[in-house]
């Protein structure tokens, strides 16, 4: 009997080993040494055909509306309280009542107009006409600081919510006009009211105006305003700091506090303003925007603020002389590691430590890129350059981010007329199709829709994007980033959406920017480039794997049995003890 046990276990071991080898070869020849698998091939022939996993159907996506309508009547050219404004055929045009209030002054528009905005009566106060040229020269702007997509101690939601792309909500800090009422649209979605958005609001004043900018710090961290490139004295008339640099010209404005900056800019140009407290964090979190000083002209009521940047519906006299339309274009980049710090805790002390001390900007890597506060595809709602044939367009471009921008305009070569707000002599104005912007650099670009093969190749939907390829992605997914377009009016469809070939639907889903939607899905009837199924959905593969495991188990089980069987010497030895 002893002998039998040993023979049986030996036999089982041999059989299971051979069977396991065969099954392993069936499953995947690379499990075996080449010599062994070659031996099996030459004796058994090829293995049976195993089909590749089937193509999966696209998951049921629920795209957002490409253009969720708000107020279609806002698109028309109209005059409100005597303020003329251009038509804005985009999906989301600027609120014309708000534009009227910014042009006339919130203290000067009719109560009815003010009620159609969410501004306070002192948000933009315009006073006396000091030089008698027909327009006010005393301007008092009040700015607040708003956080977007911050932490909520009650629910895992970002409050107030603001998306730069479907499902993409990094945290931001922005300078906003002084609004009244609720910061959220309602208490169910926690979505920010439309005026609380990226980018910080561009400011426009006239050369020679006496401008006061009051920063009312409604945020939980200290901030200042620094006017980059704008003529301003280091100290105001009262000897108080006016340059916005903490511990140099002044101490920062603490939460709950307010400070007024006084300027009377003598020079024109497209300039820049930003917070100078811990600028490596605050500027990049969004506290930066355009500051434009327009030429002093008679009857030049300037649109003091341009919420959301983009199309300037009421341009200055100087700009209207030469240009059909004017667009403010503000580019920024976003590193989630920094921007999401504000969502990681509710304690301002902890947020401050993490964003100012723990986060290391030298390790910064942006994953998202925005133009006027949105990434593609949201850029098509409010940040496209709409143009008609033979029109001349002014683009004021600012790089408010940390990485450089290589702006490329399809179908057009643009002329850089001003660099950092200073006019270039015409002979020194460069025409090119990739304009490079370092951080904080600005350029005024002139786009002529003259169909001469140089300035323009003719009408179309001409994509406009960063030629640093990362700038065309969001979370590494293209199309994303700050892609936008120069669109000729005849290519604008219903609701201001460009008439592109092929639907944009899949791009309006959070799944797309999580990388879950195959890029070419739905382009061919068989879906040959859709997602493949799981590797082992076929039952044969599963069966074989289980069988292999069982055989291996059997082998080792038999081995153990062999070692421990009576007469093997082991149990006998134990018994003797």
């Amino acid at each position: 009997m002893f002998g039998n046990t040993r023979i049986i276990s030996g036999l089982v071991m041999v059989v299971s080993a051979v069977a396991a080898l065969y099954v392993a070869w069936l499953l995947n020849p690379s499990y075996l040494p080449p010599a062994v698998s070659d031996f099996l091939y030459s004796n058994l022939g090829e293995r049976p055909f195993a089909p590749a996993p089937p193509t999966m159907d696209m998951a049921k996506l629920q795209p957002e509306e490409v253009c969720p309508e708000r107020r279609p009547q806002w698109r028309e050219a109209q005059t409100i309280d005597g303020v003329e404004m251009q038509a804005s055929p985009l999906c989301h045009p600027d609120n014309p009542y708000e534009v009227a209030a910014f042009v006339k002054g919130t203290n000067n528009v009719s109560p009815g107009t003010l009620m159609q905005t969410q501004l306070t009566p002192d948000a933009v106060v315009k006073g006396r006409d000091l030089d008698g040229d027909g327009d006010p020269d005393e301007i008092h702007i009040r700015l607040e600081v708003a956080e977007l997509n911050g932490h909520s101690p009650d629910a895992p939601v970002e409050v107030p919510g603001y998306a730069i792309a479907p499902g993409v909500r990094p945290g931001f800090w922005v300078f906003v006009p002084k609004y009244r009422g609720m910061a959220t649209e309602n208490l169910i979605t926690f979505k920010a009211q439309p005026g609380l958005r990226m980018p910080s609001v561009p400011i426009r004043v006239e050369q020679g105006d006496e401008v006061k900018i009051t920063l009312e710090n409604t945020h939980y961290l200290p901030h200042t305003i620094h006017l980059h490139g704008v003529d301003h004295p280091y100290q105001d008339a009262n000897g108080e700091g006016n340059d916005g640099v903490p511990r140099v010209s002044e101490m920062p404005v603490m939460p709950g506090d307010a400070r007024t900056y006084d300027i009377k800019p003598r020079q024109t140009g497209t300039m820049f303003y930003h917070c100078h407290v811990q600028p490596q964090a605050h500027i990049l979190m969004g506290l930066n925007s355009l500051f434009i000083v327009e030429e002093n002209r008679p009857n030049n009521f300037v649109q003091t603020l341009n919420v959301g940047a983009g199309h300037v519906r009421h341009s200055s006299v100087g700009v209207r002389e030469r240009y059909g339309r004017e667009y403010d274009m503000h580019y920024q980049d976003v590193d989630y590691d920094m921007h999401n710090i504000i969502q990681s805790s509710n304690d301002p002390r902890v947020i401050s430590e993490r964003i100012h001390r723990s986060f290391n900007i030298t390790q910064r890597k942006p994953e998202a890129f925005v133009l006027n506060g949105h990434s593609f595809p949201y850029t098509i709602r409010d940040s496209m350059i709409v143009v008609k044939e033979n029109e001349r367009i002014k683009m004021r471009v600012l790089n408010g981010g940390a990485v450089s921008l290589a702006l490329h305009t399809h179908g057009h070569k643009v002329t850089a007329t001003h660099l950092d707000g200073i006019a270039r002599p015409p002979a020194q104005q460069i025409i090119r199709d990739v304009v490079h912007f370092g951080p904080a650099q600005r350029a005024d670009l002139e786009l002529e829709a003259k169909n001469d093969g140089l300035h323009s190749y003719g009408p179309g939907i001409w994509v406009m994007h960063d030629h640093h390829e990362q700038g065309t992605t969001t979370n590494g997914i293209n199309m994303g980033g700050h892609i936008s377009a120069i669109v000729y009016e005849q290519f604008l469809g219903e609701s201001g959406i460009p008439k592109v070939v092929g639907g944009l639907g899949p791009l309006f889903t959070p799944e797309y920017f999580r990388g879950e939607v195959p890029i070419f899905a739905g382009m061919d009837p068989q879906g040959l480039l859709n997602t493949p199924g799981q590797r082992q959905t076929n039952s044969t593969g599963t069966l074989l794997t289980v069988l292999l495991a069982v055989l291996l188990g059997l082998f080792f089980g038999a081995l153990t049995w062999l070692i421990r069987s009576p007469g093997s010497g082991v149990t006998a030895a134990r018994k003797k003890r």
Partner: protein
Amino acid sequence: MTIRTIRSAPEVFCLAAGLALIGLAATVSPGLTQEAQTGAAESKTDMRGSHDGGEANAAAKDVDHSKMDHSQHAGHEGHKMVLDDNGMVMNWNDDTPPRDCKNGISEDVEFTVHAGRKYAKPGQSFGFSTNEWNVKPCARVKITLVNEDKIRHQWMMHGLPRYIYPQAMFHLEAAGGQTRSGTFIVPSGDETLLVHCDMAQHMEKGLKAQLKIGAGSGDLPSVPGISAARVQDPQAQRTGGWQIALLLGGLLLGVGIGGGLLGRKSK
């Protein structure tokens, strides 16, 4: 538990080691009484008035809030509103008791509340001087908001009857350094209504309060000084060795006690 009932050396070891570890951790740790560690005070919170589900009560079944665009004040018709450089009062009501107040106004009561940085608790940025008010059902309440900061603040209350108060709310807004008052009349049911400042992150960073009508309906979450947050804030410090020591010590203590008790029972 007497020494006789402890059966074996391992139990003694567990008890002793557990106590020693806990004692050591307690002396070494930065502080065992941090607010972040204490559990929620409330256990019977009514969802009404809270953000995630409760606003279903105040939320429109007739008006689709998700499409309501406040910047244009859609549905603004019917709002009573005073707006000037010193602030704003919206939806005040000093003469129309809600339908369920069969005996009219029960009492007149006045409160003054201060808002500002000065009233912030540690871990916050702004605060109200009081975070809870109690009124009788059908009371007429005059609230005066004194804003001690240089920025604006609000005292906004939600959950009032929609047929009197558009969007179910009463809103008081005071510019920096200003004082504003307004009056409203509460309904008769026992309810706790949300009061907050709806500026970006002001409620989250301290400007949250509650008004209880009658017996109220429990506490709302994350009301400063009254209830804990629903979303636990991660510890500021990393997990220290002392926390692990605490855990281990507790574990050993538990084992020792359990072993001792079981030992006693078997006798």
